[in-house]
Structure formats: C-alpha cells, structure tokens
C-alpha cells in the first residue's frame, strides 16, 4: 500500500486517481501508523512552502516522514518535492524536511514568464529507476514559480527554462522528488508512477 500523505495542501485526488488507474493500492492518510506501515510514501502538495511546512508541522508527521522516507520508496511531488530540501525561500526563509541537501528559490531570470507552466522536456543527467523505459523525447507537465538548487549528483533529470530546472531529484537511496506533476503528465507520468510502484519490495 502506498500512503499518499494528506496534510491539507494540494490536489491529492489527482494522485489517487492516477494510482487507482494503474491498479496500485493506495490510501490518503494523515495517520502516523499508516505512514509507518505503508510500503511506499507519496508527499503531494501545491501552494506555498511556509504554509505547507506549517501544516506538516501541525500534523505532527514531520519526524515520522523523515524517518520512514529513508526506509522505503518516497516520492515528493511539486511542492512536496521542494519540501524535501533543507530550506525554502518563498516569502521567508523556512526549514524543509532536509532529506536532500539544497534549497528552493524564486525563478527570477529576466523576461521569463512565471509560473513555469506547461509541458517541458526531461533531460537526463543521472539515470535513475523512475526514468526506466522512457523515450528520449519525454515531456512532463510543470507548474511552479520556485525551483530547487542542489548538487548535480542529486539531479536525475532537469528541464530547460531560463537555465536548468531540476525536474526529478534523487538521493541515491529511497528518496525521489518530482518538480513536475506525474499524475498530470499523460503516459510519461503514468510510467514514472508505475516505476515508483515497482520499487516496492
């Protein structure tokens, strides 16, 4: 069972719909026991970094998530991916989950249309299991105004938009983060979610 962590931020139903469509068993939950007993975790999220962290803190799940994410496959999506990093700078400096070294900053290259909204091509930097079986010409759907800054070694794939935008990050172990929405990225996104499910032991 995949626990889709429901802490009040974002369109969790889309993620659930995609998992149902793929026949992957999942549960929307905000319970510590479910997160501990799950085979894998998905942390969705849309909205702002500080308010999402605030909701996570209030849910009392932060320590559980930090511990469990290192034990079993973990995928942060969109804002959920950004929360993986150590710090965010949306409106104010704010601590993240710190699962991968790095921070999240505003995209502010000149003349860039913000948000980065639409389909962009994945450029593979360090192959990882979630990218297995994808075409070279794979597009995924993004919508965000902040981006991660982290070491190249943690970037599985990026997209070009006013420079490199980390698209899929990876700690080399169990922790993955997708800046794009796999649940809204057509066949490519479904394949990535399927690959994630395939990591369950």
């Amino acid at each position, binding site marked *: 069972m995949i626990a889709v962590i429901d802490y009040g931020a974002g*369109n969790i*139903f*889309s993620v659930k*719909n*995609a998992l*149902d*469509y793929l026949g992957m068993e999942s549960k929307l939950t905000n319970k510590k026991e479910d997160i501990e007993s799950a085979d894998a975790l998905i942390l969705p999220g*849309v*909205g*702002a970094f500080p308010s999402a962290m605030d909701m996570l803190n209030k849910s009392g799940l932060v320590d559980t998530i930090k511990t469990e994410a290192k034990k079993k496959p973990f995928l942060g999506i969109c804002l959920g991916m950004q929360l993986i990093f150590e710090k965010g700078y949306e409106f104010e400096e704010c601590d993240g989950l710190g699962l991968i070294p790095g921070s999240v900053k505003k995209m502010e290259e000149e*003349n*860039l*249309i*913000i*948000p*980065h*909204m*639409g*389909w*962009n*091509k994945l450029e593979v930097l360090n192959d990882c299991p979630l990218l297995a079986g994808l075409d070279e010409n794979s*597009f995924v*759907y993004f*919508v*965000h*105004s902040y981006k991660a800054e982290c070491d190249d070694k943690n970037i599985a794939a990026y997209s*070009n*938009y006013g420079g490199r935008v980390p698209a899929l990050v990876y700690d080399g172990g169990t922790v993955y983060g997708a800046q794009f*929405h796999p*649940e*809204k*990225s*057509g066949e490519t*996104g*479904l394949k990535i979610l399927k690959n994630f499910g395939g990591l369950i032991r």
Partner: protein
Amino acid sequence: MLAKRIIPCLDVRNGKVVKGVNFEGIKDVGDPVEYAEEYNRQGADELVFYDITASFEGRGVFLDVVRETAKKVFVPLTVGGGIKTVDDIREALRAGADKVSVNSQAVQNPQLIKDGADIFGSQCICVGIDAKKIADKKWTVYINGGRVDMNLDLIDWVKQIEQLGAGEICLNSIDADGTKAGFDIEMLDAVCKAVNIPVIASGGAGKIDDFSEVFEKTGATAALAASLFHFKELTVGEVKEYCRGKGIIVR
C-alpha cells in the same frame, strides 16, 4: 524548452458536449468524457470544460463529468463557467479540476482572483477575458458572453489581474471569435507584452497555420479552440505535427 500547448475546449450543457453555444438550436454532439478521452489520445496538452448550464441540477451533472474524466485522463483539466465564489472554486478542484477559469465574475469582483490565488495558489486561477477593439491599439473588456461592455481598458485589466495573483490569462477576441480568420494577433501581442504570466490565445482559429502564426507572432504559450476540433476539421495531432514542421516546440 517549454512546449507550446494546444487546448481543446468542450462546452457542456446538461452533461453533453454541445456546439453552437451562442446560437439557437444548440445540438448535443456527444458524451464529454468520450470527447476528453479522444482529445487525450490525439495529444491534447490540457482540456477545458466550459459549463453553459444555467440550472443547479445541471451543475451537479457537469461536475460529475469532470469527476469521471479525471479518473481516465491524466492531463490538466480546467473548469470554466459558473465560478462565482471561493466555494465554487473549491468544488471544481475537488471534482478533479486543476484550474478554474473565471471571467465575468472576476471583472465584477476582482477580489475573487486574489482570494482564489491566496487560498488555492496562483497556478489554479486562470482569468478568462472577452475583449473587443474600440480604436487603434485599444480594446475594452466585455462580460456575460461578450454582451456587456464594461468600458474597462484591456491592458489595464490584464496588469491588474497579474497583480492580483492570477496564474494565467485566457484571452478571447470577440472580433475574431467565430470568423475562422485566425487569432487576433495584434491584441494578443499587446497583452503578452504587458504581462509576465502565460497567455492562452482563444477565438478565431479556422485553419492549421493559424496556430503556427499565433506562436510565431505573439508570446502566447498556448492556443485554444473548440468547434474546429469538435467538427473534426482538424485533430490536435495534425495541428501539432504542422507546428513541429515549422520549428515550434510541441509535445
């Protein structure tokens, strides 16, 4: 590089896709969920569902359509029509929409844009605009399906929309709509230069090179069409293939 998006729009009444919204004798042309699946197969980058139902019962049926589609089609879905309050936005998102498009109501109550963006995030607030030319390089905003002139300058309005936190603009040209003579390049260009948020071009698409033209001559990041796709004059796939041949990046 970001791909240019091709977006089919489905007008829905009482749970059916209809054609000829502004004319008498509206015909039901089919099941919206089937249309959505077909457009998805053709490579549509997003889908817009526009509710033209006026009744309370119709609204429930409309949201059921969105709910069913969200279980089968995994590209972004936008819901327009009938969004008047923050609760309407919440209801649409809960049904599986990723964005809502607010139009007349945003003009009459701009606070709805700000409240929606603050609560749900800018990414899900698209502001739809119907505008018409009144003088050289001057356009005004209309509401109620293009029937009422608000005497509101288009360029002032789009700047205000951006300030209020909208994530996207869908700009429909009343002059071009239904003419099939191509998108309103001049108006789109003026709006794209005035704001720094994505702009969807709407109204006027009649042939395949209208799409490449709007991407070559304006900063629009997406193009929307309804009847062209409904009547199967063109498929989304044909439009994308043509744009690709012109060196435009599409998915």
